[in-house]
């Protein structure tokens, strides 16, 4: 913000106010995704801790960056994100820094490491390319997963669906959910953080009366398409994948407004030391090509401006303002879910 004011002052001093659209265009261009063709070549040793992603697509990206940069001496350690976070904390506590960069599939693992003071701030010029709602000082959001309400348009119309997640507890709609699923538990955690324990308890109890449980959220979406339930709660990509393979599947997506029902959780990167190569590697992850690949192949929501989200998402995504790193605080959520016999 300071630099923008500074630019404006200089522009005024130089009598360039008539050129403001051009200045705005320059500033806007600085926020757009860059092509990998415009990025510096990566050269030298770099150690990346890589939390496993869906279907190995993150691994494909790392390999593609490596192939594109033959002088990059890349060491990759692959393991579940939570386990890597744990290892990073323990290593740092012992005064050891082995990794330059941590790419995690979930923000909570990043938060666990960052909260120990084991990270470096994201450079401003990198952060500026990330969509404003997902800019954080300590980590860089890479791609997102959106909570949605898949519904069966043969059974209910869009306007029968509550606009707010808390109102689902007061309907007679038949609902599918997957309480044992990690993404669902993160969603309930967000609700607990946003609405408080009492309201979340009421919500769980109210929805449980009309809910049918499934093992996973793909199962929820399939059940909606089969008409077993009117609607469900699931991450967005299950519906998009189903529609891609089966365009006539009877399922559509609705969104709630500015509450836990429209939570966007994110994968992200933590910079663990001052190695400039780590920052440049991060720039590749935020490049137009990588962001497009994530949207195209993993159906994830790109976090940089200028890259289209996956096809099939309805307009009007209004996620709540919640600190994603706090979603790691699962235990009170599990306690609530057990207390209400949802789990």
């Amino acid at each position, binding site marked *: 913000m300071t630099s923008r004011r500074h630019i404006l002052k200089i522009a005024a001093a130089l009598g360039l106010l008539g050129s403001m659209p051009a200045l705005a265009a320059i500033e806007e261009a600085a926020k757009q995704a860059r092509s990998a063709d415009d990025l510096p070549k990566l050269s030298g040793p770099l150690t990346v801790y890589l939390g496993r992603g869906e*279907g190995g697509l993150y691994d494909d990206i790392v390999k593609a960056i490596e192939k594109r940069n033959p002088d990059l001496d890349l060491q990759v350690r692959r*393991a579940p994100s939570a*386990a890597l976070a744990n290892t990073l904390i*323990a290593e740092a506590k012992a*005064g050891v820094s082995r990794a330059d960069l941590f790419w995690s599939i979930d923000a909570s693992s990043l938060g*666990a490491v960052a909260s120990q003071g084991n990270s470096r701030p994201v450079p401003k010029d990198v952060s500026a390319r990330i969509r404003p709602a997902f800019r954080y000082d300590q980590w860089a959001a890479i791609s997102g997963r959106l909570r949605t309400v898949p519904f069966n348009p043969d059974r209910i119309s869009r306007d029968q669906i509550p606009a707010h997640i808390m109102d689902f507890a007061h309907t007679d709609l038949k609902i599918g959910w997957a309480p044992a699923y990690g993404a669902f538990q993160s969603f309930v955690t967000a609700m607990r953080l946003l609405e408080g324990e009492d309201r979340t308890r009421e919500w769980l109890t109210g929805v449980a009366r009309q809910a049918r449980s499934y*093992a996973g959220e793909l199962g929820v979406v399939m059940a909606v398409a089969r008409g077993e339930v009117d609607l469900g709660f699931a991450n967005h990509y299950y519906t998009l994948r189903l529609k891609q393979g089966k365009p006539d599947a009877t399922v559509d997506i609705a969104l709630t407004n500015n509450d836990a029902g429209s939570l966007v959780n994110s994968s992200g990167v933590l910079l663990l030391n001052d190695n400039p190569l780590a920052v440049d590697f991060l720039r590749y992850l935020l490049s137009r090509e990588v962001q497009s690949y994530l949207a195209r192949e993993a159906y994830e929501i790109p976090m940089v401006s200028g890259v289209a989200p996956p096809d099939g998402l309805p307009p009007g995504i209004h996620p709540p303002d919640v600190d994603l790193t706090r979603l790691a605080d699962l235990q009170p959520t599990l306690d609530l879910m057990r207390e209400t016999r949802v789990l």
Partner: protein
Amino acid sequence: MASSRRTGVRVLLIVLSAVSFGQGAFAAAAADPKPLEIDDYEQEVSAMIATSDQIIADYGDGDQVATRVDALVDTWENVDFHEAVETHAMTLYPPIWIALGGLRETVDKPGAIDDSRKWQARLQAALHEGLGALKLVAAMPAQTEAAQTLAAEQDDRPTITIIQDNLDQVLVHYRDGDIAQARTLIHQTYMQRFEGVEGDLIEQDADLVTDLEKDFNATLPLLLEKKASADKVGAQIERMNTKLDRAQALMNQADSDRGSVF
């Protein structure tokens, strides 16, 4: 100290949560791990424990020992045991770091004898646990659950092949009368393996996914629940394996159709 303990507890909770979410007690870190040299690791662990004993004894006598703990950390970083634990028993790796960190923090303070001994005991326990895990992996590579998880994590085979092998193992457990183990393996295979590929697969053949979901979550577990004959369970697994063969063919096609990143 209290803060350090809280950190330690928190770290361990993360370890436990990783395990409880089905990621197994062991995880792979290297694509091509070195063979296990248990005798060497035993010597390295013994030497580290002897060193820590001497350091704490001298600390108790009032000596400044911080640099010696630093040297012990260097030793830990360089021994082969380090890489072996990191590779073959990852969840037992952080407790060693935690104990070293705790020890280092404690000896900076004068007179914290009791705490230093507690951290030393934790270090010894963590080293022994790591060594024990490596012995387990070395001694029974095909029989222990830990080793199976390790093998799965390190396995370069296609996920569908791993799923099929797990289902065959379900039948082995069932024939042996270990229904609980068979049931657990079905659930783990679904949550840890099938869920990772079903996203891709559903684009290729959504009905096949529905079918397999039903097999994993209803048909097969119900046969176990009803104590069906092993032949019936085997026939059901054979049907699932046939569907999984088709899934593999579809995924191969999807892989070849997938565009490149750049």
